[in-house]
């Protein structure tokens, strides 16, 4: 439990750092005058920063509460290490990966008749996903 407490303290620190970075970036996006062509990209990044900010604050609240109360810390530990939840996460990951790759492949086939740039982008995405999956498969095969 002491080890888990240290992990939660580290996470709290990382979240606080991330929130600080997001606040700085958000201020920069407002203050620095960017060209109109970059507007969509900047708006997207600003949205991500705000999302991270809210999620980070929720996380800090949850972890700070757990660090003050042993029972809450134990409950948090159980929730994170529950074997059934871990199994569900694994199954979700496996099923989602296969579904996403197959869906992208079908969409790629359809887009080939409409826009070559979109088709090439989708092909790169599919190869990227498969390559990352292969790397993780090799890593976990060696680990276990």
């Amino acid at each position, binding site marked *: 439990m002491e080890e888990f407490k240290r992990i939660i303290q580290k996470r709290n620190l990382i979240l606080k750092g991330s929130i600080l970075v997001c606040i700085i970036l958000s201020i920069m996006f407002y203050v620095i005058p960017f060209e109109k062509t970059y507007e969509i990209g900047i708006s997207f990044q600003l949205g991500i920063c705000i999302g991270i900010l809210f999620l980070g604050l929720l996380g800090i609240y949850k972890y700070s509460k757990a660090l003050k109360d042993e029972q809450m810390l134990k409950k948090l530990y159980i929730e994170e290490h529950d*074997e059934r939840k871990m199994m569900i996460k694994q199954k979700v990951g496996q099923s989602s990966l296969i579904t996403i790759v197959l869906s992208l492949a079908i969409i790629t086939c359809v887009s080939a008749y409409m826009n070559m740039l979109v088709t090439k982008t989708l092909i790169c995405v599919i190869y990227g996903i498969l390559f990352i999956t292969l790397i993780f498969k090799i890593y976990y095969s060696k680990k276990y």
Partner: protein
Amino acid sequence: MKTKIKELRKANKISQDELALAVGVTRQTIISLEKEKYVASLVLAYKIAKYFDLSIEDVFDFSDVEGIQ
């Protein structure tokens, strides 16, 4: 896999929450075990059996498991 967790819990007047906390899982896991929707790992099965002071075979029914005679 069939289990006697529900019967043992009721016989000992223990709630699902208490059992879950004692063996280090969530209440949903205990519910799934009792409904025979989830098969416990070896470690969890041992923890549950030890909690009731019984052997694993007394808590979990292996008669339907393939390859076991």
